[in-house]
């Protein structure tokens, strides 16, 4: 991975300092069949006040990457590579030090807000427990002041501060979860499909709140979703994930208007809107992450596959317009594939696709 070109696209708003930096980050899960490479060498960085969207189909490793970034992985999993928070490699820290960073430096907003609050604890108890964990000497008045302030921003009336979780609607509970994450002012937050369980109106509200974080708290946000509409609306940059790898990353508008990777292109084509006349889908299923296909992981399903795709793994290269993609076909189209031989450039025969698909 030495040919990585730095992605220096300036965020829409003022560019901030780098908050989080992943270099060749890997996450494995142990299974009976062997290690699952759920995140397989991912590199990106995230700046203050920036929202990076992370898209991909189910099982591509989006959520694992999100959890891997804040160290919230199940037993039997491991991380490797480099993961720098404000320049400090978190993977070299002791578990206790990593644990202490959670909440204070690294926040997480989850998918299903209904079950994320302890049903036996009042909202106020959730806030005081969270604040006291990171500041032992905090006063009761200070707890209340800080909690009510962030609740006000989330549109929760102060009269509900002592209520129990079951007394709130789904949308309100997600705002409570966001408030509970933001009350500690973490510089980096992962939001893992925060609106999937909510209806469209509440979704729009939550997305606006997340979008405003940049102005209110200068938070760097990784927004995981499979809804491309949300990315277009809220994100500065977007990363497209496939089979544990980021196959394309760049400015959101650039990636959406001129996708480089065939997977990004097909994903955009499959999006349903009011103008959709037929349903588009990508043939086949995401590959087995225990034994991913050789070469490019996407080649068995790729309409543009060439012979090289089945043998050699593509490298991340920067293209015109600033996007970085990992695809031989895109390299060829943009004149970046000088190292490919003539035979490698010939299209991959159909039968081989079928065989590879079955494997």
């Amino acid at each position: 991975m030495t040919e990585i070109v730095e992605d220096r696209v300036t965020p829409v708003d003022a560019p901030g300092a780098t908050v989080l930096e992943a270099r060749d980050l890997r996450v494995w899960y142990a299974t009976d069949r062997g290690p699952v490479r759920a995140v397989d060498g991912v590199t990106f960085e995230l700046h203050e006040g920036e929202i990076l969207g992370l898209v991909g189909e189910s099982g591509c490793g989006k959520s694992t990457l999100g959890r891997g970034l804040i160290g919230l992985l199940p037993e039997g999993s491991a991380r490797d590579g480099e993961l720098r928070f404000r320049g400090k490699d978190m993977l070299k820290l002791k578990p206790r030090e990593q644990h202490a960073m959670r909440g204070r430096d690294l926040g997480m907003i989850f998918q299903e807000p209904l079950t994320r609050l302890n049903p036996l604890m009042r909202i106020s108890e959730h806030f005081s427990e969270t604040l006291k964990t990171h500041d032992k000497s905090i006063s009761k008045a200070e707890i209340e002041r800080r909690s009510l302030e962030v609740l006000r921003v989330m549109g929760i009336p102060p009269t509900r501060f002592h209520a129990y979780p079951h007394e709130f609607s789904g949308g309100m509970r997600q705002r409570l979860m966001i408030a509970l994450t933001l009350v500690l002012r973490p510089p980096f937050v992962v939001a893992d499909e925060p609106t999937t369980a909510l209806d469209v109106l509440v979704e729009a509200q939550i997305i606006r709140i997340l979008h405003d974080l940049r102005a209110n708290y200068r938070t760097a946000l990784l927004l995981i979703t499979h809804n491309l509409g949300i990315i277009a609306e809220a994100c500065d940059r977007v990363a497209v994930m496939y089979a544990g790898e980021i196959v394309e990353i760049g400015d959101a508008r650039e990636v959406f208007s001129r996708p480089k990777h065939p997977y990004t292109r097909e994903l955009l084509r499959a999006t349903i809107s009011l103008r959709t006349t037929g349903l588009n889908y990508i043939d086949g299923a995401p590959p087995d992450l225990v034994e991913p296909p050789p070469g490019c992981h996407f080649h068995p399903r790729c309409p543009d596959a060439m012979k090289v795709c089945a043998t050699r793994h593509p490298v991340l290269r920067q293209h015109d317009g600033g996007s970085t993609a990992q695809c031989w076909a895109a390299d060829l189209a943009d004149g970046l594939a000088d190292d490919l031989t003539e035979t490698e450039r010939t299209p991959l025969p159909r039968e081989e696709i079928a065989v590879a698909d079955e494997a």
Partner: protein
Amino acid sequence: MSSGSGSLSRYIAIRILLVVPMMWVLLTLVFFLLRVAPGDPVSAAFGGKLSEEALDVRRHNLGIDRPLIVQYLEYLGQVARFDFGKTISDNRPVLDLVRDNGGATLTLTIGAFVFAVIVGIPLGRLAGRYRDSWGDIFIRLFGVLTYAAPIFWVGIMLVLLVVKLFPGWPTSGIASPITVFTVQPKTHVLLLDAIFSGDGTAISDVLKHHVLPCFTLGLLLSGVIIRLVRVNVIQAMKGDYVEAARARGIAERHVVRRHAFRNALVAVVTVIGLQVAATLAGAILTERTFNWPGLGTQLVKYILARDYIAVQGLVTFFALIVVLTSVFIDVINGLIDPRVRY
């Protein structure tokens, strides 16, 4: 606010009102089951000793030759006035029976419960938190063994063991005859009477007599509690709110105590309440094993005598305890879990 005491007291009132229909169903069941079983008080007492005609005369005098429905309605009428009648075999009021022997059963079961909770909850929590560790395997084995071992067998083995190791330790009855004789009966609960008398020797004598029976009965119950707490802690540790708490950096011991364990307790309290019935059944066996002067011993005696009135009264009393415990458990659940209060 919305979770005020108004809804909680309403909830409690509903629970208590429900006791009446529950008791009616129980009374009906006990009444007819006893009549369906073969034998009656007269043949149990005099069968083979008197002629068939003489037995019929006695049956007629007792009124048990009348149609069942008449006897049933008459009995319901009595119970509605809290009159449980007098035993057929020795003409004692059933309520006196409960008063005189209930105390021994009460202290036995409470002692067993306290022992089981003190042993079962921490062990179950430990096993659940450190799942599949050696400690967990050992604790699970202990739980299965104590639950599976027949209570009378455990009791007899313990008696043999104690007699061998500590020859002076009491293994039978609730107190030495001298204690029973000297302590002034006030509350009909011997342990309380001994405490009120302020006689140190009497208190220690009664307490010593409690150790083996309470331990035997508590052991059975602790097995259930261990397995229950363990499973629920494991379940709660997988909860989404537990992961969310970890994501906020909350220390693992607080995550276990405030989030996982408290939620596990909700289910545990409910099932522990249901165990009261099993404990009373176990108490009957324990009382027989340790010659304990409680209601269980009395119940066995009257069942052998086919004493309808005594058995009906005692079983109703046992049922009432179980029903009241379930109401009590519902109230406790309402207090711990805000979602239960309607």
